[in-house]
């Protein structure tokens, strides 16, 4: 139950002249009007869904790759856990890995919960606790995750606070279990990590719903506007304000101040990472520089006059890097204070003076950042006029000549890119290899850190890119937020029976092994094959940073609807919730599975019927770990790039027959291993592309749908590896599953493998029995 406290306060209370402000919070028995009967597991505690987790983990047991032989988490150690040895506390290396994964997932979930708490707190202060959650006429199921997990149907911003209270309590319990001498079984650590992932999902939904309603961002708009993206879109002749991070609030005040003062055309506001995406959801005048991976390069380029940082995924040396260019920096968030003086109590004019003198400050009153940033940008841009931040090309050559060719740059490059070779070539005034490097480099700067001659390799690379790559202007569709109920109604049946061959969600960070281009190429492959392609965050930007032969980005070529062949940018990292949300809504809107407090049923439905796969090609952070683990708990498989192996844990099946119950017949039976893995790495883009059709297969596929999926599986395999998939026989259940177009070829292959059709195919597969 949740209500406006004013309506229920007694005269006695009024007499005492209390300032009343608040919501009523009940323990666990939350009573609401009956929009749906309450299911078995509202507000699940740490062990509530353990049985479900054990079902998943039995089929997809954790696969561990320990980064370290030791544990050094408490001073009882350090302990050597290698070769079967136990630590001083009794822990073995498997549990230790699972424990580290749990900690990572807790950090990720805390990140999103903290961010969402900040947004909700802020919006309640501005709009009131009663401000309604209304996502428009096309979206009735406004919060599928909250409904399913908590049993709450949030109607106001105040309702979201209750959900966050729950999230924070769960995170605290979960993190606690990582303490020395708590959980002792790896399987229970994994169940806890899955719980943390689910909480992460929930926290993201709260945050994104809050900002959508609070800032009037697109509410499931298929035709969200096209936004300018890329280095080349920023007009360097104007003062430039750069916002980095994930929290849209300070940027929002900047945009407002510009509008109020008719400065829209005179000042450039651009962003990096999710702040950028969310800023364009708020105001399409903002521009997106690019994903995280372009942060150091862009700052080094010196284009920005004022750098605003908020929270998450910001380079921690941003202050040093900003100051080197002569720009000024404003930190705006308690999460990242950078040791700066807190000047929040000053007036805006005093702040401007302070920053002009000190070049950086912490301002926790985001409202003031609008004026301060804009006015500063005018002054600083004059100050910095003609300031050169990058070396000239001739200087690049001179610098390159200092290179000793020791080769350590290549060795410390996370992707072993050929830095040394670019350097050697540049000595001759040739830059082809530096141009190649620019295209794929993440800009982490480890080559610089290692260089014995202290060469500014990132700056050199940036200069070459700037000089030789002319077309750095792209487009991205603004984040549309949730999927409309009507879209779900349209695609529900074809997805569940497999006639739409799959939903491919490209998400996560930009720690790509070969630059952004591969993400776009994956998207293109599956758009052309009429999959539904969904994107968010840095992956959504990566897709936009590539053009085809026609010089167009995929966003310009494909529509934004959640439909076969649609390219749907949901928004920022927070907006990932709408991808899980769409899967949940298929269960609910199409198949009438009740959501309220009914996690297990919903997840079981998704696992067996909804052919969706997440691809986090550049997954890097603890947030990405939490997101992937959360998605896994809902029964959605995930592919991560090769760096994802360093998360230490994947969920891999044995690739043998799976066991399910056919609810229709009551029979427990063996089926083909679909979906094959729950989270797995791919080494290359080609491997990833070939895995996608396979991981979109589901036990519930109809013969037509399965045939379609098999068609694509064979087709991409032949395209990228020049051969039939070596495990194809596993996925052809009966002859009906064989696509007509390639029937002979497949039959020949099957014969060679000694394939036999399965006698039975389940009608209503479930793993709950």
């Amino acid at each position, binding site marked *: 139950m949740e209500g406006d406290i004013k309506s229920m306060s007694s005269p006695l209370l009024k007499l005492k002249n209390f300032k009343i402000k608040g919501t009523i919070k009940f323990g666990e028995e939350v009573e609401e009007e009956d929009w749906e009967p309450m299911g078995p597991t509202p507000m699940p505690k740490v062990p509530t869904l353990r049985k479900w987790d054990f079902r998943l983990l039995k089929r997809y047991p954790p696969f561990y790759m320990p*980064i370290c032989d030791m544990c050094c988490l408490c001073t009882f150690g350090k302990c050597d856990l*290698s070769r079967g040895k136990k630590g001083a506390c009794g822990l073995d290396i498997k549990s230790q890995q699972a424990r580290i994964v749990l900690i990572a997932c807790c950090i990720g979930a805390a990140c999103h919960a903290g961010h969402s708490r900040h947004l909700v707190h802020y919006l309640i202060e501005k709009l009131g606790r009663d401000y309604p959650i209304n996502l428009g006429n096309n979206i009735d199921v406004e919060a599928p995750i909250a409904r399913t997990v908590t049993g709450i149907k949030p109607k106001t911003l105040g309702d979201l606070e209750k959900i966050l209270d729950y999230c924070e309590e769960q995170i605290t319990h979960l993190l606690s279990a990582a303490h020395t001498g708590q959980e002792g079984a790896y399987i229970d650590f994994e169940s806890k990590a899955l719980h943390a992932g689910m909480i992460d999902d929930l926290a993201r939904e709260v945050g994104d719903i809050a900002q959508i309603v609070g800032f009037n961002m697109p509410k499931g708009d298929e035709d969200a506007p096209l936004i300018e993206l890329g280095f080349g879109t920023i007009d360097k002749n104007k003062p430039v304000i750069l916002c980095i991070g994930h929290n849209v609030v300070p940027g929002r005040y900047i945009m407002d101040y510009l509008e109020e003062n008719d400065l829209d055309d005179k000042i450039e506001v651009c962003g990096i990472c999710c702040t950028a995406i969310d800023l364009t959801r708020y105001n399409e005048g903002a521009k997106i520089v690019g994903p995280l991976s372009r942060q150091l390069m862009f700052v080094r380029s010196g284009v920005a006059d004022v750098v605003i940082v908020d929270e998450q995924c910001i380079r921690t040396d941003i202050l040093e890097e900003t100051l080197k260019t002569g720009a000024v920096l404003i930190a705006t968030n308690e999460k990242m204070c950078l040791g700066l003086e807190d000047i929040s109590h000053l007036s805006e004019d005093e702040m401007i003076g302070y920053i002009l003198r000190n070049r950086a400050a912490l301002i926790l009153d985001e409202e003031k950042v609008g004026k301060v940033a804009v006015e500063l940008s005018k002054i600083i841009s004059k100050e910095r006029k003609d300031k050169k931040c990058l070396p000239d090309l001739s200087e690049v050559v001179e610098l390159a000549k200092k290179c000793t060719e020791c080769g350590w740059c290549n060795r410390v490059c996370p992707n072993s890119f050929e830095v040394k070779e670019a350097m050697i070539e540049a000595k001759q005034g040739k830059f082809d290899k530096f141009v190649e490097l620019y295209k794929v480099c993440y800009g982490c700067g480890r080559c610089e850190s290692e260089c014995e001659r202290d060469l500014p390799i990132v700056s050199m690379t940036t200069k070459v890119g700037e000089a030789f790559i002319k077309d750095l202007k792209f487009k991205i569709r603004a984040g549309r937020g949730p999927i409309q109920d009507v879209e779900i109604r349209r695609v529900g049946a074809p997805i569940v029976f497999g006639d739409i061959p799959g939903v491919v969600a490209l998400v996560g960070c930009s720690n790509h092994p070969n630059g952004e281009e591969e993400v776009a190429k994956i998207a293109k492959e599956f758009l052309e094959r009429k999959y539904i392609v969904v994107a968010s965050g840095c992956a959504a930007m990566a897709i936009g940073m590539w053009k085809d032969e026609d010089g167009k980005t995929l966003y310009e070529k494909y529509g934004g609807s959640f439909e076969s062949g649609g390219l749907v940018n949901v928004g920022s990292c927070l907006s990932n919730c709408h991808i899980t949300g769409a899967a949940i809504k298929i269960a609910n809107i199409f198949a009438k599975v009740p959501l309220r407090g009914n996690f297990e049923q919903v997840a079981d439905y998704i696992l067996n019927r909804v052919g969706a796969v997440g691809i986090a090609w550049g997954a890097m952070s603890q947030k990405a770990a939490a997101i992937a683990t959360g998605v896994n708990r809902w029964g959605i498989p995930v592919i991560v790039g090769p760096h994802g192996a360093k998360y230490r844990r994947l969920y891999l099946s044995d690739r043998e027959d799976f066991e399910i119950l056919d609810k229709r017949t009551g029979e427990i039976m063996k089926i083909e291993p679909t979906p094959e893995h729950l989270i797995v*790495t791919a080494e290359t883009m080609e*491997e990833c592309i070939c895995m996608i059709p396979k991981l979109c297969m589901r036990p519930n596929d109809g013969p037509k749908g399965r045939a379609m999926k098999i068609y694509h599986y064979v087709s991409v395999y032949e395209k990228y590896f020049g051969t039939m998939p070596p495990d194809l026989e596993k996925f052809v259940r009966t002859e009906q599953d064989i696509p007509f177009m390639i029937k002979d070829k497949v039959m020949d292959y099957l014969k060679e493998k000694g394939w036999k059709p399965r006698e039975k195919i389940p009608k209503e597969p479930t793993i709950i029995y």
Partner: protein
Amino acid sequence: MDRTTPYQPTSGTNLNHADIVSPTILIQMIKRSKNPILIVGCKLDKDIEEVLSKLNIKKIYTPKEMNLLDIMKYLAKGEHDLALFIGITYYYLAQALTHLKHFSSVITVTIDPFYHPNACYSFPNMKKDEHIDVIKKLVGALGK
């Protein structure tokens, strides 16, 4: 070139690192193995791939024929007593090998021209031409 620093220096797993193996010893190991296998990655130089094709050992090509982690899971079951690796993205193999290091008794050997700390045995860091010679020596002794 330093021989035994992991090629990417951070890729070791702290306490136990691979022993360096010479081609001569490796040939003995393979000869004595009951059921050796070679995992060939997609980052292999074409010339080396050609030389290797003559090596008389069962091979799996990754990712073309199997995902690397599926291979690791398969190898952990113990069917093969000796597993050689070549041509896989350095940091990816380094990480994947830790699974076998901790959870199996299969002897792992990397025959890339890079020192790979997480295998049981590894070639040292070496130049490309030295590497070709070494591979040729292997194939010479164990070719078809």
